[in-house]
């Protein structure tokens, strides 16, 4: 926007009114020949289609889906919400010859907060987690992270499992999975297995999913008691990928010192990371601004971010440190502790 945001002073009202009103759908007179009709209809195929051609399979069960993926191997791609995959198809950066659509499989969605566990089906739409009653009060970092994912219309369609399986290094869900010690359930031709998030996430768009294997659900550990959490990220515009993002969760002990701390970052490497050095440094100490600065320095020392068109490595490292300090201060404040002056 910026300098381009000029407004024309005089607007012809007639043009506005007609723009508001969509053309009538039932006017057969202007109807174009069907571009997608089978050739037998003897009409020209005039469609402008961006994705490459692919076979479309819509299995009704997990077994069918796994079998289809196993049969077609590297040629096949599973589609959940499609909010990353469809753009990749449109740009032809992905050219699978078979798409296995998972949306028709029942029982893979649902979000449930039960004790210390948030249980999510892989096909749960992100917006449904965002709006889960009581979740913001219980663990604000989850809702704060989801709110940074694209826009509402993207989260209405995009799924939790799709985001994790896509494994973009700036994906908010990967930070949540690491910070909340997620256990991921996978099903494949060899049966079912459960892997921790730290083992699931490997590198850029690379996970522990084997050939024909699908992510079916996950469990996140959401601590009860005297804990607080916060997710912060910096992006050029709302909904853009993060230049850097931080999820912090702090549990205080009886004396108000840090009992447990978890710090996870996105956008600063080949995958989301937990910084053990910073977490260890925090444990057992009084939560003060000086301590948060120490933790931020420990994080910065560990990171080896990339430079790209959006930000240099140095800038990413700087932003990560600032966000760690702020996220820790907010998390401690939410846990009901800390030196308020120092935490500000």
């Amino acid at each position, binding site marked *: *926007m910026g300098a*381009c*945001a000029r*407004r*024309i002073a005089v*607007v012809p009202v007639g*043009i*506005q*009114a*007609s*723009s*508001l*009103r*969509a*053309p*009538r*759908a039932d*006017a057969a007179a*202007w*109807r*174009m020949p*069907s*571009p*997608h*009709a*089978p050739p037998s209809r003897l009409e020209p195929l005039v*469609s*402008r*289609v*961006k*994705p*490459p*051609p*692919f*076979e*479309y*399979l*819509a299995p009704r069960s997990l077994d069918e889906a796994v079998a289809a993926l196993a049969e077609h191997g590297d040629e096949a791609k599973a589609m959940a919400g*499609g*909010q990353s995959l*469809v*753009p990749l*198809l*449109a*740009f032809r950066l992905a050219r699978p010859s*078979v*798409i296995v*659509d998972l*949306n028709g499989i029942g029982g893979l969605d649902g979000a449930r907060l039960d004790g210390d566990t948030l249980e999510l089906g892989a096909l749960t739409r992100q*917006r449904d987690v965002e709006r889960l009653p009581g979740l913001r009060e219980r663990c604000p970092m989850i809702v704060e992270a989801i709110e940074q994912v*694209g*826009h*509402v*219309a*993207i989260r*209405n*369609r995009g799924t939790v499992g799709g985001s994790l399986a896509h494994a973009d290094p700036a994906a908010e869900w990967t930070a949540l999975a690491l910070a909340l010690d997620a256990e991921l359930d996978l099903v494949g031709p060899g049966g079912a297995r459960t892997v921790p998030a730290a083992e699931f996430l490997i590198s850029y768009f690379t996970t522990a999913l084997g050939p024909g294997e699908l992510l079916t659900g996950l469990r996140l550990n959401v601590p009860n008691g005297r804990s607080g959490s916060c997710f912060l990220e910096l992006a050029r*515009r*709302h*909904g853009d990928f993060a230049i850097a993002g931080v999820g912090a969760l702090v549990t205080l002990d009886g004396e108000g010192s840090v009992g447990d701390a978890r710090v996870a970052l996105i956008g600063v490497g080949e995958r989301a990371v937990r910084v053990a050095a910073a977490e260890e440094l925090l444990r057992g100490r009084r939560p003060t601004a000086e301590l948060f600065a120490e933790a931020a320095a420990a994080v910065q020392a560990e990171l080896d971010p990339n430079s790209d068109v959006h930000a240099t490595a140095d800038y990413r490292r700087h932003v990560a440190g600032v966000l760690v300090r702020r996220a820790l201060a907010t998390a401690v404040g939410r846990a009901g502790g800390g030196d308020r002056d120092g935490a500000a």
Partner: protein
Amino acid sequence: MIATAPREVVLRVNGVEHRGFAEPRVTLVDFLRDELGLTGTHVGCEHGVCGACTILLDGRTVRSCLMLAVQAEGHELRTVEGLAPADEPLHPIQEAFSEKHGLQCGFCTPGFLMSVEELLRDDPDPSEETIRSRLSGNICRCTGYQNIVEAVRYAAELTREAAA
């Protein structure tokens, strides 16, 4: 049947059943426009960034360029054509956009209108911050957004009055 060949898609748009043919790779927005002739939904960036193609799928906003037409089989869609039938008064949201000059060229408007429809259902009296945040996924190159925000506030007012 070859799985890449066009297949029949049956769905409901604005309460009316529609049928058409689509290759699996055809996106929902192209199907709506080219196959069903419902050209009220506009196609802009075609990769989910601009919001011009926003429609309601089973009552929730989605980018119709980020779905395959075949995935909409059996679903209930609402598009800008469904806000107010052709010879009836404008929908309150359309009325507000017209009254407050919430558009100039109108290309992005169908997407804005559908996003606002969902917003006002979620929050009948949204703050300016909420409006700006909720509309951040719709891009307008003409207005500078000021009048769009005003239009949404006015639409909320009209909607509340109508409900009262």
